[in-house]
């Protein structure tokens, strides 16, 4: 039984109290017989960047995938506990997983644009919803690409294959693609781990922009990135949530010893 975590205050500096966007309570997850997540409880704030850090294999990716039920795709996965988004438990029986995944977008570690044109990649989500009018699609594509800070670079290449872009551009394309279906939450699983520093910097700038509109949860093994970009940070270790607090506090004055040891690089 983990001791009660100190949750970050939901009272902002201007006095407004916000409801947590995602409220996870007592989440456990098993891959077959082996347990991967142990009694996780956490509140994710809306329109903030929350970063998950921790050594490899500690369960951060597994956890983030529970937030849009991508773990359902793996055989033998079992979960207990609740994950409530805007108050609704997404593991309840009546939930439409398809619209959940539209509302909770995901960016993967290895960018995965479809083997279609840039335009078609971004338009994919809206086409799924039945949108066919060329003009409206054009607007959606342009808006999403601008939000992802990619428009200027690809506006003349919309019909070229998406796979001909550079690594950083492809990742931003995936972000644009996710934004095109107008989600509320963006989950990013190590989005820049495969990118060079310049591309990484661009993505990080993007996050600062995006958090004005979207709730962002980012998994990263790069502590400095978490420190740069996030408002809240959670430290995971071996499937347990060790500490979750404002980033400033985690990195300057963490409460748990393990957190401190990880931050200072005693283990990794």
């Amino acid at each position, binding site marked *: 039984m983990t001791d009660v975590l100190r949750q970050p205050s939901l009272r902002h500096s201007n006095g407004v109290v916000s409801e947590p966007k995602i409220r996870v309570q007592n989440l456990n997850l098993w891959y077959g017989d082996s347990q991967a997540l142990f009694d996780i409880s956490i509140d994710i704030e809306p329109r903030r960047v929350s970063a998950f850090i921790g050594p490899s294999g500690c369960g951060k990716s597994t956890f983030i995938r529970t937030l*849009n039920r*991508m773990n359902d*795709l793996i055989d033998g996965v079992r979960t207990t506990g609740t994950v409530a988004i805007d108050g609704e438990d997404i593991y309840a029986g009546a939930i439409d997983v*398809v*619209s*959940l*995944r*539209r509302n909770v*977008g*995901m960016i*993967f570690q*290895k960018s*995965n*644009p*479809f*083997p*279609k044109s840039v335009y078609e990649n971004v338009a*994919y*989500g809206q*086409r*799924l919803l039945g949108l066919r009018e060329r003009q409206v699609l054009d607007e959606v594509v342009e808006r999403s690409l601008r939000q992802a800070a990619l428009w200027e670079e690809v506006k003349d290449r919309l019909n070229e*294959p998406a*796979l001909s872009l550079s690594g950083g551009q492809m990742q931003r394309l*995936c972000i644009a*693609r*996710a934004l095109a*279906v107008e989600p509320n939450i963006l989950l990013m699983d190590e989005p820049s781990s495969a990118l060079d520093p310049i591309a990484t910097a661009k993505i990080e700038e993007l996050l600062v922009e995006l958090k004005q509109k979207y709730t962002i949860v980012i998994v990263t093994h790069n502590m400095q990135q978490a420190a740069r970009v996030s408002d809240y940070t959670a430290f995971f270790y071996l499937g347990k949530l060790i500490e979750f607090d404002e980033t400033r506090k985690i990195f300057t004055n963490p409460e748990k010893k393990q957190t401190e040891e990880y931050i200072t690089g005693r283990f990794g």
Partner: protein
Amino acid sequence: MKRYLANGEIYIWLTGAFLGLSIIMIAGMLVLISVNGIAYFNPHPIDRFMVVEGGDSLNLLGQVYSSEEIPQEVIDAKGFDPTGESPMRYLVRVGNREVFGQDFVWINGPEIVAQERPPDAICMERSEYGNAYGFIQSLEAGPDRMVNNEVDAWDAFTTVHERVMTLVNQIRSIEKSDLGGLSYRMEEYRLEKVELDYDLEHQALDPQDYRRRTEEIAEELRGLDAEFETLQQAIDSLRALSEGYVVHLRIFGGEPGETVRIPVSSIVRSYKPNVMTMAEVAGFYASKTWEFLSDDPREANAEGGVFPAIFGTVMMVLIMTIAAVPFGVLSALYLREYAADGVMVRTVRIAVNNLAGVPSIVFGMFGLGFFVYFIGGGIDSLLYPERLPSPTYGTGGILWASLTLALLTVPVVIVATEEALAAIPRGMREGSLALGATKWETIRRVVLPSATPGIMTGAILAMARGAGEVAPLMITGVVKLATELPFDAHFPFFHLDRKFMHLGFHIYDVGFQTSNVEANIGMVYTTTLLLLAIILLLNLSAIIIRARLRRKYRLVGF
């Protein structure tokens, strides 16, 4: 030594050598087929031999087709001089089958006393009795008009022949399209009448309606008969114009000075091979090739063209591919994407792989039992009961033959599609699902388009395998000679219950089932060459399509 082996260079040479051997064998086979196949169209020169056999001397005129060493028994029997070089004998086509009874004779080298190449020797290809060889003596150019001078006769003949040929072609086209259309409609009415009789007998029809309709049909038939008469008259008048021209040809090999009378209308082509110029030879090649590709066969498939077989082969391959590919792709989709991995799926996969190794004749028997008798018989009793016991779909036809071959090639498609689906990276599927697509939408919009190059590979392999199989076809719908094509201008245009001709079967038939084997060897080679060319063409177009798709979906597996 060990180090030399470990170096690996020797294996480069070894593998290269075996590859070279394979290429040589394939190329050698292709060259053999091409050379012999093209030689079939060559206008062989006509030689005249004076042969002494026993005490008799004989004059023979004909084209030398091949030569070989005389077998020992013949040398002994004939008492030829066994010392020195092995004597050769020559296969000479002397033609004039209506006089001599056989097309070819063997002429033994040692028995030849004299041999020359007379410049005016003529070869005439005819619509019956094969070729005629000889010298033109005179031409009957109408009643009481004989051209007796050899030179004038040949000139007159060439003009007359052209005119007669036009008339003959006109007659043929009237017979084929107009008369053919008429008899088709007559047949339709006859079948309708049979159906009416049947319905009346089974009380499915009011007697009044029966009488009314039967009278209508009788009226129509009277009209058709009248049309038939008119067409027949037209044909008769054309025929009258084309008859009356007879060539007198002085031949060799029988009585000295013997002549034969050949009606000009029965002559398909005539030429003087000994004096043909290069241009004329090229023209000859072109004309023969065109005839081969577009004409119907003559003389029990030994002469003429193979157009119906080309048509039948291509149509069958297309139907087979249309049946096999969607079936195979959907099966593979289910196996790979939807079925839970377990004993069931693994068993099915093993079964599919083994199916690919079953001998094709077994598929033929299955096709006969299942498609022809069971399903075809069922269709007949359901939809065409009035025609029984004469079967419509309950007998072999192009539909059943194509479906049987489709079954044969489905395992190939399934395996290739499964490989293509497996090669698509998981990330692509997850990316689509994370955007709110269902599994089917992901398959339809992302997975299948990316897998298309691999699926096409499967389709190519299937086409190549299916186009070459002959055994299952023989029992499910291929015939030696089909009078109608399975696709024509009459509704419903596709007549899938008709029997058809097939190039592979044609090769077998021409090479082994005809009486005049020596004459046909050339045609066997040519038909083989044609079949190879068609398969190559089909594969090439599929490969080009696949290359285009690959460029579109590059960086994704296959």
